């Protein structure tokens, strides 16, 4: 049946929908079961890290006589090498990770969108200069850079960490944003805006970029997952300062204090790993559902 390829059938009367775009997205998201599950997981974990300090006493005292205790009524997930409550650490230990993840993703995205759309819209020298910059940034080994910077400046502030992560991870996304804008700017509505002298900045950021909203949102979530993995990796390797308690530091400590060899230490290592994995799984499910919503061709297989 080589020759029989069904053409797309134009049935505009069917395509008329009444709702706005935003509630349409929400409706479609809710219809996808995994998308909804992902959304719930993500919202719960974010809610936990934001609101937990209001309900949980942040004071987590050291009990030298109660090290590596198994789960009990007092300590549901047992205690760690210093006799500190594990559950408390897990509940409270997401803050830095999530903050750095979201903030780094935001920076990545902001740089990628601004550079990508300017490069694509103006082309010429600006385009080649920015493309060369992506090449340079991509060749910088991120881990080494972070280790060096960490050694010299002692990266104590999570904001600095997020900035660093953001500044070195934008090139790939910038290139795909650039490709999107290259195709969008050929659309007739962009030419129509040019015919009215609406100004380049307005055309780029008001007419073109919002058309990629779905794409940008999906990539934001992906950037969050990447930044989180990078950060946890830094902590586990001990490249980031080990002040306070967060999921990454917990894993690092579990490793250095030999929790993996102790049956009682299992909760201490598994709890942060599960928290991270669960959050990442939620984000991935959410991304999948969003992709299907914004790009219906995918959902048909």
């Amino acid at each position: 049946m080589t020759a029989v390829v069904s053409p797309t059938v134009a049935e505009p009367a069917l395509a008329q929908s009444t709702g706005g775009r935003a509630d349409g997205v929400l409706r479609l998201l809710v219809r996808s079961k995994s998308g909804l599950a992902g959304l719930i997981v993500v919202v719960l974990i974010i809610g936990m890290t934001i609101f937990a300090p209001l309900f949980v006493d942040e004071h987590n005292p050291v009990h030298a006589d109660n090290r590596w205790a198994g789960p009990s009524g007092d300590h549901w997930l047992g205690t760690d090498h210093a006799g500190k409550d594990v559950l408390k650490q897990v509940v409270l230990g997401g803050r830095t990770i999530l903050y750095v993840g979201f903030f780094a993703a935001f920076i990545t995205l902001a740089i990628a969108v601004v550079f990508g759309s300017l490069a694509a819209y103006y082309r010429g020298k600006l385009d080649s200069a920015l493309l060369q910059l992506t090449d340079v940034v991509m060749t910088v080994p991120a881990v080494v850079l972070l280790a060096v910077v960490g050694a010299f400046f002692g990266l104590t502030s999570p904001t600095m960490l997020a900035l660093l992560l953001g500044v070195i991870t934008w090139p790939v996304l910038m290139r795909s944003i650039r490709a999107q804008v290259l195709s969008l700017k050929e659309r007739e509505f962009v030419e129509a805006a040019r015919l009215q002298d609406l100004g380049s900045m307005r055309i780029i950021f008001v007419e073109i970029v919002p058309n990629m909203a779905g794409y940008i949102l999906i990539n934001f979530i992906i950037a969050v997952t990447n930044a989180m993995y990078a950060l946890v990796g830094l902590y586990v390797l001990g490249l980031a300062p080990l002040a306070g308690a967060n999921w990454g530091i917990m894993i690092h400590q579990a490793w250095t204090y030999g929790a993996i060899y102790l049956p009682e230490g299992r909760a201490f290592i598994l709890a942060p790993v599960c928290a991270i994995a669960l959050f990442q799984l939620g984000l991935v499910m959410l991304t999948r559902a969003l992709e299907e919503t914004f790009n219906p061709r995918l959902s048909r297989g």
Partner: protein
Amino acid sequence: MTGAASDQSVLLDLKAVSQTFHSKRGALPAVRDVSLSVGRGEVLCLVGESGCGKTTTARMAAGLAKPVAGSVEFEGADIWQLGKRERVAYRKAVQFIHQDPYASLNPIRTVYATLAAPLRKHGLAGSRKDAWEQAAALLARVEMTPAANFLNKYPHQLSGGQRQRVAVARALALGPRLIVADEATSMLDVSIRVGVLRMLSKLRQELDVGFVFITHDLAIARHFGTGGRIAVMYLGRVVEHGRTEDVIGDPQHPYTKALLSAVPDLAPGPRRDPGLRGVDIPDLAALPSGCTFHPRCPLYVPGTCDAVEPELLEAAGREVACHVVAGQADAAPADDTREKTGGGV
């Protein structure tokens, strides 16, 4: 018409413009040496088949593409030599309507946002309320009333005809004196097409807007171009140019004749076989020698038509580019080939 034109206030003058595209198969001369003009409140229809260069010509007229040779003059000034301020004035004065109303409106912006943007950008509307009222007035101009029902709608909530009306309203926002419309009605359904055409005709009469109207549909050109002029294009050149009534009612060029006889028509009329010698249009990358229509032309004279490219000369009250029609095998060079005759009376 150079003499007559000056009294009639020529808005836009294409002077011997050419456009060449480059492709893998070599240079494609999309438009070659086309001279046309349009005045205030006047209509010029460009008709022809795909690849004849009508859209390229229209894009040059609207300043969307720069000709590789010749010049486009708006009110006497070359539009590619304008200073910044004159360039803005030109941009406001000449607007373009795209063929596809599904692509020419930004899908994520409401009708109000689309119409208000040029008004606010160019300082025609001070406040949001002012912009809202002016946008409503623009919708009324394109017969979309009550405007309040449409201003907050997104393009996907409108029908094709309504979208095209919004596109026209946007083109009117800056008070243009010339509108270049590229197949503006060809994507619309039959039942609403003439409604949009009639609305455009009304704008021409009420606002004295000139039109360059591109269409492949001769019936539409006849209907919209009543009282104006038609230029028939073939492979990048104008082959016949004159008053709409003359060209449609009594075509001279064999290509125009073939087109008219090929139009399917509900009205009973003479329906002859176009009598072409070939079905397929030659490739722009390998144009036939002499008159480019000669391989298909029923009037083909060997030795003449395939050797010399005919010039656009006056015949039967309009301009025709055909050796046979001109009645002379070796076309005598005209004094001024750009001089237009029979147009814009």
